[in-house]
């Protein structure tokens, strides 16, 4: 049996976006919002132009909606869940949530094999490393983690309630027209992605709205918004301090390695000038013997999908195939304990 030919499904179900596809692909074939309508419709058409409420599937974790999302995923990928192993990125807040999902996957969705591993480890692998300091700027929260030899060090992991979505807010005022909340947020997000920058540009930045009008903003205004990621407030120290805390709390042996392998992932890392700002800010604060070095992905696109790509590669390695947890193993061994044993974290 040639392991290179076995295809599995890889899924990264985040708080805002869900990305799913097949091992060996460098791009998720199904990319959608982790939200649905009251009538269980998925996708931006249904969400943006419907009249009812838009329901969050995570935030908080809703098992019934999650089950629907999983089934929809296999349908959209065009395959039967009974025939495909699933590698699911682990971004669960509690063991209880993960346990529930494993139960749903084996008993209701009926996949044959399962594996899970932390998002941070997958982002590390997709940069071709097994040890790194990962800064994952998500939609609603940012997580900084040290990954060592593929293990995510949970004791030093730090999460903060700030992410890309908070940067949408200042752009909402420019969205005019009769839209539901979901659609308004999408439009504000588009404007943000078109305008936001850390780079010092003298001229005014402009963005053309669908109706032909232009938004004009000064560099100073945009910097103030972008700097939210670096400035501290009541709940939040600034992303540079999250990384610094991990460096300072790590054992000496790996401090230097973490400093020299800093990886920033998540769409917000693509804001022009962000990586430079992160490099200079962090370098200024790092302990003396630590030289800060940012590791880049082959392409900026990778930052949106680094977790998916890491999973796609990991689950395609022939050496990985012995690690899957099979359905019968799960059923025979007291269920969740085997997940804890075979999936490092």
């Amino acid at each position: 049996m040639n392991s290179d030919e076995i295809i599995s499904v890889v899924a990264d179900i985040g708080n805002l976006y869900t990305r799913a596809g097949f091992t060996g692909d460098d791009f998720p074939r199904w990319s959608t919002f982790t939200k649905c309508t009251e009538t269980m419709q998925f996708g931006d058409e249904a969400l943006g132009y419907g009249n009812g409420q838009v329901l969050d599937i995570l935030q908080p974790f809703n098992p019934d909606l999650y089950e629907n999302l999983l089934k929809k995923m296999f349908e959209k990928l065009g395959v039967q869940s009974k025939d495909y192993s699933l590698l699911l990125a682990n971004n669960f807040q509690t063991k209880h949530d993960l346990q529930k999902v494993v139960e749903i996957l084996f008993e209701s969705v009926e996949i044959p094999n399962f594996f899970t591993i932390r998002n941070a480890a997958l982002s590390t692998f997709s940069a071709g490393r097994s040890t790194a300091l990962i800064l994952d700027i998500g939609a609603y929260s940012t997580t900084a983690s040290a990954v060592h030899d593929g293990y995510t060090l949970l004791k030093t992991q730090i999460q903060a309630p700030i992410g890309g979505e908070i940067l949408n807010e200042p752009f909402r005022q420019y969205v005019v027209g009769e839209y539901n909340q979901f659609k308004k947020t999408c439009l504000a997000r588009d404007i943000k992605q078109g305008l936001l920058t850390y780079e010092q540009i003298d001229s005014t930045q402009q963005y053309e709205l669908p109706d032909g009008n232009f938004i004009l903003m000064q560099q100073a205004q945009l910097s103030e918004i972008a700097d939210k990621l670096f400035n501290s407030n009541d709940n939040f120290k600034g992303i540079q301090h999250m990384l610094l805390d991990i460096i300072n709390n790590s054992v000496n042996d790996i401090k230097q390695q973490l400093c020299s392998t800093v990886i920033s992932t998540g769409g917000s890392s693509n804001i022009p000038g962000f990586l430079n700002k992160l490099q200079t800010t962090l370098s200024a604060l790092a302990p003396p013997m630590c030289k800060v070095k940012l590791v880049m992905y082959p392409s900026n696109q990778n930052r949106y999908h680094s977790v998916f790509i890491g999973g796609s590669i990991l689950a395609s390695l022939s050496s990985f195939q012995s690690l899957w947890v099979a359905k019968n193993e799960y059923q025979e061994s007291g269920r969740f304990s085997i997940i804890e044993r075979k999936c490092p974290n």
Partner: protein
Amino acid sequence: MNVGTNVSDDCVTEFNNLKLGKQYRYVIYRLDKDKNEIVVDHKGARDSTYAEFVSHLQNESRYAVYDYHAQTDDVPPRQIEKLVFIFWSPDTNQPVKQKMAYAAGKEALKKKLNGLSKEIQANEPSEVEEAEIKKTVLN
């Protein structure tokens, strides 16, 4: 995280020849993709120079064990000998899948080699210069 990459028996045999038999200065390993196994790539004679060793680290990832001898700055100077594990993972031109297969296989190899004192991960030539290895060994 050990993903179960195979390690050929040769890898351990030659490592012991270096460690106990003092037959080599270094052993370089590579990942045989077809067999999904880590195998011996090069062995350096006991009197090889560091430059010779580095000349084998080119555009593809490699693992290596180097028996490094250094002198401390104390008076009188002490001799230190350490077995250093080097993970060479160049960023240029390697497909991510290959880089990752090497990253994932590292633990499997390390587990089989008893007596490693230090580890270096190098992604570019400056990180595997002799000065770097000396610094690691003396700290």
